[in-house]
């Protein structure tokens, strides 16, 4: 086939074909216009004059969240939402009509009319849907609204599922909350399936598992006339039914969680993380002060938001994963492990200087917390009595390079990878870090003394501390802490076999581990130990206290522990901000957590609480 030769005057055959095609295309348009305007015209005229087509979104209920024993943490209940359709005929004919509607509506809903107007201005440019003015409106307001219906064109009361957290403050940081999607998020392609005014998970499980929990909203095209609803529109668009979100069962044990939260005194700030050292399941994750996520489900005022996100105490801040604290003496077992593993010491090594309550390094004096001194100690006694002078010398002997190297094996400068958003990195600085921070050669070798006892630049999150406690408990495995036990309502049965992708085994000798574990057991059981307050009936507990100096106020109290020592099933990290000694402020909290785990209250009382 060769190209047609081009005759004088052009391309006749092609012209004819193309002309026929074009005429055909336009004939189709004319035919379509004829159908729409002449044949069906009166029907469309009626639609345009009397009625109005609107889309109704059928909001999908979010999936339920339960604890490992099936106790409810979050569900949905029906509620009333008041919406306004800005494209109602009343407003498109006379835009000023909107002002009088809002003026009448605002007192009934007890909201500021300016806020409603802003919301309408903003959202009407994004979609053609009725705009949600207020969620969770009570029956009384609904009754008042219905009475004044004729003054409120385009206003509807719709039924919508409302996110409810039946336990209120309990586990708030862990669960997170829901809030309306922001305009900035709406503009992003990954939120293409969201509409203005939609709720989405913020923080915690709600955020992390948003895709699962959300489900899929349905929609229905309705024909609405002045009197109310008339029915589905023309049958052209079938309703899309909402799909309920997926249920989640958490690894959390509500008994342990409750004990952890209740153990704090009113007004105290701190965090507790409890982990199963056999598989990394998080049994409890608490942060104080906490907040009531129910407040967010219905929309929250700016003032209240400012109060929660700041307000001196920062209640929204999840101290268990978002804050790094110097670990203080709770780091000593790991410094000891580093010493034993690098060969710097053995179980029988005594240092040249016995503890006299202070240690002289160059021109500086480093004190021991016990001013009268501990005398001469080997590693066991140094851990039991938490002797600073021993660890100063140990740190010097190991050296910064080897100590930082060992700590990097435990990923102290990383994240644990827990399935919650916004986890903060920890930090155990090395030489390069100091060179970068202060300039090469412009920092003192003395920093190692502080690092060895968990002070100075080192900072760890409570969840990392719990992972480290579990690491000693299970003999050298770093489990990635995780919160999901099963997904879906008929969920996967618990297989019992832990997921290997979540673990990382660190090569460490059993002998070193045994020395440290024996010492940690003695911290709690030995009369000279600092952790006596963590003793629990009939269970052997191993632990380590910590008291971290902090430039902004009173010391932070810390405690790490695991139990039972023979075959550990729980590892706990406790942190209490500005509370003083770990032995008196943190260890008692750990005891209550262990108590709840090993000797839970009878199930009847638990059921009473969940019923609220």
């Amino acid at each position, binding site marked *: *086939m*060769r*190209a*047609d030769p*081009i005759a*004088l*005057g*052009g*391309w*006749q055959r*092609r*012209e004819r074909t*193309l*002309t026929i095609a*074009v*005429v055909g*295309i*336009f004939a*189709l*348009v*004319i035919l*379509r*216009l*004829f159908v*729409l*305007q*002449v044949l*069906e*015209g*009166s*029907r*469309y*005229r009626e*639609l*345009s*004059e009397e009625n109005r*087509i609107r*889309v109704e*979104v059928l909001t999908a209920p979010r999936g339920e969240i339960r604890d490992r024993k099936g106790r409810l943490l979050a569900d949905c209940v029906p509620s009333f939402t008041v919406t306004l359709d800005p*494209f109602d005929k009343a*407003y*498109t004919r006379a*835009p000023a009509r909107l002002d009088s509607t809002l003026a009448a509506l605002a007192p009934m809903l007890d909201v500021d009319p300016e806020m409603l107007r802003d919301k309408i201005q903003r959202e*009407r*440019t994004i*979609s*053609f*849907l009725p705009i949600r003015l207020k969620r969770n409106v009570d029956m009384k307001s609904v009754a008042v609204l219905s009475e004044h219906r004729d003054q409120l064109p385009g206003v509807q009361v719709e039924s919508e599922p409302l996110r409810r957290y039946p336990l209120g403050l309990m586990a708030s940081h862990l669960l997170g909350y829901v809030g309306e999607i922001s305009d900035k998020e709406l*503009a992003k*392609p*990954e939120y*293409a*399936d969201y*509409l203005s005014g939609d709720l989405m998970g913020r923080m915690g499980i709600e955020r992390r598992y948003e*895709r699962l929990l959300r489900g899929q909203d349905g*929609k229905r*095209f309705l024909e609405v006339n002045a009197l109310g609803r008339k029915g589905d*529109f023309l049958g*052209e*668009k079938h309703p899309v039914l909402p799909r309920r979100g997926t249920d989640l069962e958490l690894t959390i044990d509500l008994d342990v969680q409750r004990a952890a939260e209740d153990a704090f005194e009113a007004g105290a700030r701190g965090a507790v993380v409890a982990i199963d050292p056999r598989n990394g399941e998080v049994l409890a994750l608490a942060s104080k002060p906490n907040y009531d996520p129910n407040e967010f489900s219905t929309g929250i005022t700016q003032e209240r938001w400012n109060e929660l996100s700041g307000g001196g105490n920062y209640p929204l801040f999840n101290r268990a994963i978002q804050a790094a604290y110097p670990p203080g003496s709770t780091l000593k077992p790991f410094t000891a492990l580093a010493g034993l593993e690098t060969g710097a010491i053995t179980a029988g090594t005594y240092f040249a200087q016995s503890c006299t309550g202070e240690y002289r390094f160059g021109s500086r004096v480093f004190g021991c917390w016990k001013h009268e001194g501990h005398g001469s100690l080997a590693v066991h006694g140094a851990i039991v009595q938490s002797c600073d002078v021993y660890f100063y010398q140990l740190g010097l002997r190991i050296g910064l390079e080897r100590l930082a190297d060992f700590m990097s094996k435990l990923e102290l400068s990383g994240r644990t990878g827990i399935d919650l958003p916004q986890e903060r990195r920890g930090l155990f600085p090395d030489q390069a870090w100091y060179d970068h921070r202060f300039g090469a050669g412009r920092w003192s070798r003395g920093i190692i003394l502080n690092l060895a006892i968990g002070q100075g630049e080192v900072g760890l999150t409570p969840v990392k501390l719990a992972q480290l406690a579990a690491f000693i408990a299970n003999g050298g495995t770093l489990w990635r802490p995780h919160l999901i036990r099963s997904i879906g309502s008929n969920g996967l049965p618990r297989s019992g076999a832990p997921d290997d992708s979540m673990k990382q085994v660190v090569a460490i000798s059993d002998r070193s581990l045994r020395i440290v574990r024996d010492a940690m057991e003695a911290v709690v059981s030995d009369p000279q130990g600092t952790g006596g307050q963590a003793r629990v009936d009939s269970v052997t507990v191993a632990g380590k206290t910590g008291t971290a100096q902090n430039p902004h106020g009173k010391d932070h109290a810390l405690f790490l522990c695991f139990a039972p020592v023979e075959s550990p099933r729980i590892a706990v990290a406790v942190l209490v901000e500005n509370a003083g000694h770990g032995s008196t402020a943190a260890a008692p909290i750990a005891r209550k957590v262990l108590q709840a785990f090993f000797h839970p209250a009878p199930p009847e009382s638990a059921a009473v609480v969940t019923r609220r």
Partner: protein
Amino acid sequence: MLSPRFSPDIDRPLLLATLLLTLIGIAFVFSATSMPSAAAEHGLYLKQIAYLLLAILAGGLIAAVPYRIYEGKTSYLLYAVGLGLLVLTLFIGHVGLGAQRWLGWGPIKIQPSELAKVATVILLASQLADRKKDWTQIKNLVGPVLTAAVPCLLVLKQPDLGTAIAFVAILFTMLYWAGLPFLYLFFMITPIANVALSFFTPAWLLFLGLLAVILYRSRIRLLPLLLVVGVNLVVGIATPQIWNHLQPYQKQRITTFLDPGADAYGAGYQIIQSKIAIGSGQVFGKGFLHGTQKALAFLPEQHTDFIYSVVGEETGFLGAALVASLYLLLILRGIKVANRARNRFGGLLAIGMTSIFLYHVLVNIWMTVGLAPVTGLPLPLLSYGGSSLVASFLQVGLIQNVAMRWREY
């Protein structure tokens, strides 16, 4: 300069259709923005009149210079400028309605894809005008295909699927006019059809069978035959595999991209409102400025993409059919001019410009009457917008240029 010797050959019906459509456009831009709820847009028709003066000037100038000037080196230069503007848009463009389509200095904003279409047609015409080449040879097609593919991909990146497809439509129309057998064009589309059908095995097998029969009957050479078969098999088998290995969010991105209306509650609703507007116009319409649906839903787009539904509502079947007929006239005259030209470059130039009109009118009007998905393409000459108006006048100017000099070889 415009020499009086040629002016008698100016295509009068084409000129008339263009001017009538433009005036109707200004009237309905005025109507579409006249509601009290659109106070911010009340002056837009005045701006449209200013754009019209600019457009007439641009169209007149491009028509005055003998069109042979645009052939050869000049066509590459124009094309390079067009591409340059498109690349610039990707980096420093303004975002409008979720895509980066605009380029601006201070108060002036232009949509370079409109100008790129014109430049691409000029270069394609110049390339395809080479009579010495056998246009059934695959190696000869590489040049024109690349010429259309580069701006197509740049526009796709914005992302503006509707305009990107315009480049494909232009290429195919011009290849057909240049002498490529219809069957070849069919084979070129097969891989695309294949991607769409590969998810539904029975339809895919049926399609392959049909393709095999057509291939057998067509007796094309062995190399192109193997190429068609090979590409189709690879595409058909690989597509579902790739799709299944994509992450859910990646899939979502692709479906949203291909069909923006699938998720958005807005688009499906727009079509319903557009149909109600047009349908409610009945035979005679509600009268100029008396439309009621325009005050409703498609707020940002009724004076641009959905202007035809305002026409349909206010002037009824008679007005809507008249406007459609004017477009039909414009396009048929374009084809006529292309056919009449003795010069091959001239003929291709005219048909290319006409194909831009054909594609836009087709897609836009079909969208407003509910025959095609929402794509966001303007209706040439009628919709509000300076870039589109200037580009339309450049197209008409070039067609007239060829019409006036049809005798030249």
